[in-house]
């Protein structure tokens, strides 16, 4: 019993962590959709959804219910297996990066203060299993998986998401879907390069690919580059632009340009399968917002917070986590704001911009950063 419990304990902890992160991200994503409709409404002089619940706050749940209850149509001439596979691939690839998000600073002893109030439960040779759990929880990181290549992991997994869109476009057997799928794949491959190159500058400054390591590197930097947005401003701009292109958002939403392509790659998708694509898009928005915050805005780190709360204590972690979320919300708002402001690119403009402007700028930034880092470390 004792060994079984001790073997299963990490598994239980990871499962709980994944469930908590998944639930949190899903709630944020659901309310991003509502926020988008509200904010777009205000920008266009409308009110936005306000019928379901007070001020429309229950709208996401109504939407979900609608998606579940609607009739699920499958085109007769579609390639069935691929048609079903595509939305699954899109959503899986969108959710996977969640395991490396640094949600907050590590907690030095989160459960120690609780132990005296809890009953003593002996288990096997262990006098008090509650104390044992509290002992295990020491130095708990607020990250599900600590892998030392977090940045690459996020880039790699999101790049697999292209298949969801490309396969959806192909398997629907519809010319608009195919055009949308092709456009999307071309766009995502093109902007992935600029995105990867813009991240390199930050990675060189931090000297690590670990997301928590990058945040710590920013916290330990001299004051004039406390956030990497200052030394890497060009990298930040390139990253932000390619992030918009990667997530197929305005002004780069050509894959679903409704004036030319009906709805692009998901024209033939209905009900829950469409909802999966829709969710994948918003989860991807969340992912690139997290990456923006972690790489350029110091992640959960708030300058001066360690003078107010003790580092590693629960209030410190909560305040840092709140700051992390606030920064993410800013980027999510930026997405909506730009959607309400800018018109759409033309496809050749989009390609020329990505290859002839963004990529050279990103590579130039990498070269300059390399030289500066080399001179600084000499």
């Amino acid at each position, binding site marked *: 019993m004792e060994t079984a419990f001790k073997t299963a304990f990490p598994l239980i902890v990871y499962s709980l962590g994944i469930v908590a992160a998944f639930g949190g991200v899903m709630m944020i994503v659901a309310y991003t959709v509502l926020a988008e409709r509200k904010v777009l409404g205000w920008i266009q002089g409308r009110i936005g959804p306000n019928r379901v619940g007070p001020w429309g706050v229950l709208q996401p749940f109504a939407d979900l219910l609608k998606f579940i209850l609607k009739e699920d149509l499958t085109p007769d001439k579609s*390639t069935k297996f691929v048609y079903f596979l595509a939305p699954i691939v899109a959503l899986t690839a969108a959710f996977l990066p969640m395991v490396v998000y640094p949600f907050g600073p590590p907690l030095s002893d989160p459960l120690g203060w609780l132990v005296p109030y809890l009953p003593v439960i002996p288990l096997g040779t262990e006098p008090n299993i509650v104390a044992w759990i509290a002992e295990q929880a020491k130095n708990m990181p607020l990250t599900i998986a600590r*892998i*030392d290549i977090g940045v690459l*992991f996020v880039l790699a997994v999101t*790049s697999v998401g292209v298949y969801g869109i490309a396969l959806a476009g192909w398997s629907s057997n519809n010319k608009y879907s195919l055009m949308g799928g092709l456009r999307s794949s071309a766009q995502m*491959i093109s902007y992935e390069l600029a995105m990867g190159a813009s991240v390199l500058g930050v990675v060189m400054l931090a000297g690590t*690919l670990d997301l928590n390591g990058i945040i710590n590197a920013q916290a330990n930097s001299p004051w004039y580059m406390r956030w990497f947005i200052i030394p890497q401003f060009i990298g930040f701009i390139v990253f932000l632009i390619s992030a918009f292109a990667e997530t197929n958002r305005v002004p780069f939403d050509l894959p679903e340009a409704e004036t030319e392509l009906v709805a692009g790659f998901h024209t033939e998708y209905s009900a829950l399968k469409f909802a999966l694509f829709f969710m994948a898009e918003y989860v991807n928005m969340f992912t690139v917002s997290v990456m923006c915050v972690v790489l350029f805005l110091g992640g959960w780190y708030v300058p001066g917070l360690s003078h107010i709360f003790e580092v590693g204590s629960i209030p410190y972690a909560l305040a840092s986590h709140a700051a992390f979320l606030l920064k993410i919300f800013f980027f999510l708002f930026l997405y909506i704001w730009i959607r309400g402001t800018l018109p759409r690119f033309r496809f050749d403009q989009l390609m020329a911009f990505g290859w002839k402007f963004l990529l050279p700028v990103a590579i130039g930034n990498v070269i300059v950063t390399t030289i500066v880092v080399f001179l600084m470390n000499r």
Partner: protein
Amino acid sequence: MAGTVLFFLFAGFAIACAVSMVYHRNPLYSAISLIGVFLALAALYLTLAAPFIAITQILVYAGAIMVLVVFVIMLLNLDEDKPLNRLKYLYAVGGGLGLALLAQTFFIFYAVLKTPKAEVDPNMTAGRTMSIGRAMYTEYLLPVEIVGVMLLMAIIGAVILVRKMEQPHLELVSEGEDEKE
């Protein structure tokens, strides 16, 4: 224990995907199966404590090269392969090569069983990003440079191939088509 379970899970997945890649007549299904093989291999690298190689596998093969393959298949809209009678002799060649590979595999098994078991060093960092980078830019600098030059050659070759399209007579044809529209 958990490592063994994961190994057989992903190894089985890789083999199943590989078999389905060879047997499918539809080229797109074959491409999807190949992506499955790459992902399973990446998972195996992860269980071998080589996260950098695993992620590179996904980033380069599954994320970039296979996208191009899928792209080509989608653009050309290839039909299902018909078995060609005149290529029957390839079965014999393939069978022979398969037997040779099988023999090699058994030889590797035999050699591994023969070698004395080495102690696992818990501080080994061979799969870490830092150690890979250090090895690449010190011990293996020459191969890295050679690969870099070869890739540059490939890029230049691709640019030259594209440039050919801009010869005058081809330009005239494309302009004529534009006017028709």
